[in-house]
């Protein structure tokens, strides 16, 4: 960000809810079915059909509201009227002036508190495929519509304009995703579109009123979000510094080009003609329901982060590693490992690097994780072997014993290791004499060569021990 400018960012996050059926009908809410096989008169908007609200969707919306410290309030449904072929009734049933959740917040690990203006229930639209031309929307010849997704329950979570950097936007979205997953309301999968993020970005001189904002769409990953916000803020600053003016518009992020471009100018303000949905009654979550949902809610990421931090004590862990562990739901693994006496730094590193960014814990269970790390700590698995086994277990599950045996990772006998070390020393007499003369850092050189020769099976500490006996 250029000096003298501040960016103001608010995010709108849509998440599909993990219900069995759709929001207003009994059709299955499942991803990936054959087109138009999960539809009925209601979600197709056939004349005469009527919506009936799904109780589980309400419970999950309440769970999200409670997790985000919102007030769960009496609410109503409204119709948002606009024509689009994805939308079977040519209106969307959503919430307007009385959302089910309002006025909450989400605390980020950097200490920022982002306000949550509202988290309301609404129905999803169908999906179009654009054919002919290049397959992109604007030069397609025709579009094919599948209504399987139409009527899938969504919660839209609208943040206040409290985010100040692209990194923070990413941090907020990651933390929110972790909250949504922790509530059981969402699987948080951005690549499948079950969580979708739009960003409202504006820039201003600090202390000045809010600038004109642009809304950015098509952010399919946290990385895209961060890049798009950074690009857009720079674009706006450059425009303003050149004496230009930011137009209020919707912009499309192109991940390949790494830039945003105009999608729709908001000169002609949309007129959605909201009015109360007359086919639905008011939605007042009962105290009993709220209490039930609250009781079923597990600890949220912030609480788990605090608990893990307390356990780590002085152990060094940067905010990012901790975020990865917490947001990936890996803190139970780390805690169990530490409780078994495994080094906290090792537990954090293995959890964050091998499970966090890659694939999550997958089918790996806590005992297997602890066992692998215990063996690595005892020198019975090399670091490379431990990482490999963790990857295998995350993919396929099972016990640590079986996974290690399947790889044939038996600890090298000290005789075998000694023979390899002797060979390596023989091949590098110059380095060896310098090492013997006291150049300790050359230990890494020998470890590297031993590892190469043993295809990673050697234990680093054992190699050093062998070197010392020969020094």
């Amino acid at each position: 960000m250029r000096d003298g400018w501040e960016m103001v960012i608010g995010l709108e996050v849509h998440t599909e809810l993990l219900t069995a059926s759709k929001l207003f009908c009994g059709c299955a809410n499942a991803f990936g079915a054959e087109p138009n096989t999960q539809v009925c008169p209601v979600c197709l908007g056939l004349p005469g059909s009527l919506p009936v609200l799904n109780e589980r969707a309400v419970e999950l919306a309440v769970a999200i509201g409670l997790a985000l410290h919102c007030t769960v309030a009496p609410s109503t449904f409204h119709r948002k009227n606009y024509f689009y072929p994805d939308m079977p009734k040519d209106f969307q049933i959503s919430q307007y002036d009385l959302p089910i959740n309002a006025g909450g917040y989400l605390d980020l690990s950097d200490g920022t508190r982002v306000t949550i203006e509202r988290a309301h229930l609404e129905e999803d639209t169908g999906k179009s495929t654009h054919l002919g031309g290049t397959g992109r929307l604007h030069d397609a010849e025709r579009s094919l519509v599948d209504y399987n997704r139409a009527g899938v329950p969504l919660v839209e979570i609208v943040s206040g304009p409290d985010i100040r950097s692209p990194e923070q936007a990413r941090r907020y979205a990651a933390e929110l995703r972790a909250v949504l997953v922790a509530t059981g309301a969402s699987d948080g999968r951005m690549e499948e579109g079950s969580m979708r993020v739009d960003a409202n970005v504006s820039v201003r001189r600090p202390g000045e009123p809010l600038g004109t904002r642009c809304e950015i769409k098509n952010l399919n990953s946290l990385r895209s979000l961060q890049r798009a916000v950074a690009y857009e803020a720079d674009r706006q600053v450059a425009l303003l510094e050149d004496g230009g003016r930011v137009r209020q518009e919707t912009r499309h992020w192109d991940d390949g080009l790494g830039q945003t471009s105009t999608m729709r100018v908001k000169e002609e303000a949309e007129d959605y003609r909201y009015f109360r949905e007359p086919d639905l009654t008011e939605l007042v979550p009962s105290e009993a329901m709220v209490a039930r949902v609250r009781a079923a809610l597990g600890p949220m990421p912030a609480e788990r982060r605090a608990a893990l931090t307390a356990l780590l004590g002085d152990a060094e862990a940067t905010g990012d590693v901790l975020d990865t562990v917490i947001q990936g739901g890996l803190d139970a693994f780390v805690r169990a490992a530490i409780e078994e006496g495994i080094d906290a730094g090792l537990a954090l590193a293995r959890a964050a690097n091998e499970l966090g960014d890659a694939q999550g814990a997958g089918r790996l269970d806590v005992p297997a994780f602890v066992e692998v790390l215990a063996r690595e700590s005892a020198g019975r698995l090399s670091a490379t072997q431990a990482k490999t086994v963790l990857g295998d277990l995350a993919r396929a599950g099972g016990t640590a014993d079986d996974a290690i045996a399947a790889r044939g990772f038996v600890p090298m006998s000290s005789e075998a290791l000694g023979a390899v070390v002797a060979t390596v020393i023989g091949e590098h007499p110059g380095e060896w004499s310098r090492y013997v003369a006291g150049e300790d850092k050359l230990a890494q050189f020998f470890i590297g060569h031993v590892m190469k020769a043993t295809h990673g099976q050697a234990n680093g500490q054992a190699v050093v021990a062998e070197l010392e006996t020969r020094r």
Partner: protein
Amino acid sequence: MSDLTRDEVAHVAHLARLRLSDEELDRFTGQLAQVLDHANDLRALDLSNVAPTAHPVDLGTVLRRDEVSAGLGRDAVLASAPAAEDGRFAVPRVLGDEP
């Protein structure tokens, strides 16, 4: 007289996805103005302390259990489609993006 203008009627027709001929535009402007004039007796009332009634019955919260039920078969769904292709509803190209 209502202050409804011909331009407003044209704008409303656009929102409602209707095309009106010049003659229809004139006629509708007059007819709609007449109905809106009649509604001026409502506009004149001071109802600032009255709550709106959007719905005549107050049934409280009505919910359904989250259970999957059989939908329509795809053949039944597409039987009434003006155009279908590859198991989906076919429409001419879409120019605008979804709001």
